[in-house]
Structures are given as structure tokens and as C-alpha cells.
């Protein structure tokens, strides 16, 4: 596997942990917990980072080269 694919694989695993724990907390925290909004921000940032990694990893189409 090339270095960049290893990087993408490892990065997704790390982000998966950030997103996974955020989701677990959001499932478990009471609806009126004051920390919910903070955890939600962490999850959103994790999702955004994941999207960036996916976009960076996608092969560049011929027409844009």
C-alpha cells in the first residue's frame, strides 16, 4: 500500500474514534445536558475532517488534470 493510502487509512481510523465517542456521548447524555452542544461541535468537526480526507484521497479526474 502506498504511503498516502496508509495515511488515509490511519487518518480515517483516528477520525472514526473521535466521531464514534461523540456519537456514544450524544446517545447517552440527557436531552437537557449543557454539554450536548459542545459534543455536537466535536462530532461536526470530525465529520468535516473526514470529508476533507475523502476529498483529498479521491483520484483527480483526467479532465481536471
Amino acid at each position, binding site marked *: 500500500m502506498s504511503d498516502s493510502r496508509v495515511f488515509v487509512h490511519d487518518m480515517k*481510523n483516528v477520525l*472514526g474514534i473521535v466521531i464514534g*465517542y461523540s456519537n456514544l456521548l450524544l446517545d447517552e447524555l440527557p436531552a437537557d445536558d449543557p454539554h450536548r452542544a459542545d459534543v455536537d461541535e466535536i462530532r461536526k468537526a470530525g465529520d468535516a475532517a473526514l470529508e476533507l480526507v475523502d476529498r483529498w484521497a479521491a*483520484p483527480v479526474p*483526467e479532465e481536471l488534470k
Partner: protein
Amino acid sequence: VTEPQPVLLVVDDDLGIVRLIDRFARTLGFEVVTAACGQEAMAKLESDKAAVALVDLRMPDADGLEVLRRIRAADPNCQVILMTGDGSIDTAIEAIKLGAMDYLGKPLEFERLKQLLSGARDHMETLASLDLPSGNQPDISDLPLRDARGVHTHLLSDVERDHITRVLRGTAGNKKAAAQLLGVSRRALYRKLDRLGLR
């Protein structure tokens, strides 16, 4: 007397993922046993009688498909779910053909994992309630989840559809890039999209 909890065997060399799955599966009523490689997985399978195994496709000492094959041969009652960060359609299909219950993308889709684990647990409970003498348990693969060859035929197209949809999302809908990642020609991808009703 409390019912024994079903055992989930998690096979992954990434400790962070293992801990997260452990935390998640315990809330669903599973006892979690972990293994960092294929060899350890087989040893744990023998000592802990897992109901479900969650196996990473890529591990230092073995290919996840090989681990899947070995688990299915050693204990047909143990349902196997594979997980991977990438992978071609062929790998997804091969996994299901080898008897995997399903194939999950990474980062893990926890809602899907929850459905699968709950389904497997209910299935175990149904088996237990049949109160069959020990040693006479029906092979789970005989039950109507699968066809005669042990293949989830209804799932093959679902696996393909999910996998393609996920890859297309990653390429922001660019089909040429998606075909490259999926390891198929662009024409083959279009044919699959037509067949799966995704176009």
C-alpha cells in the same frame, strides 16, 4: 440466574478502535473479547465461544478474508462481520460469499453495527429458547438468513449498493474517480448503477 451474555470477538490491531467497539457493544449487552491478530483470534474463538466476530480486513499477520474463512470453518455458529477503510467491490462480494454476515465501512457505521449485533443477539436468544440438548444446536447458517449454499443472496446487491454509494459520496459523485477506487472500468460501473437502480 442471569443469562450468560453473548460474546463478541473483536479482531483489530488498532487499540483505539477496539476500545471504542468494546464500549459500544457492552451497552448492547455483549461481553467483548479482543484479539490483535489472526492467530490470537483463533485462540480466543476456541476459549470464548464467540457468537459474533467483528474482523478488520487488514491485519499485520493475516488477511481478514483468511481470518473469516478460518472462523467459519472452526465454528459455523459464529457470525462474522468484516470491516474496512477501503476495498473493492470484489472484496465485499467475496466476504459475503465466504459466509460473512455483512461488510462494514470504516469509520464504523455504528447504527448498522447496532442493528447487526441486536439481530445476532435476538437470534441467539431464539436458539437458546428452543432448549435443544447441547451438541445438537442447529448451525445458524441453516436458518433462513441464508440460502442453501450459505450465501445471503438478498444481501449481495445490498452490499454492492451500499459500497458504491459510499465510494461515490467520497468522490463527490465523480464516477470516473469512483470506478478507479472500486477497481472496475467506468463502463462496468455504469452497468452496475443501472442494475442497482442508482442512475
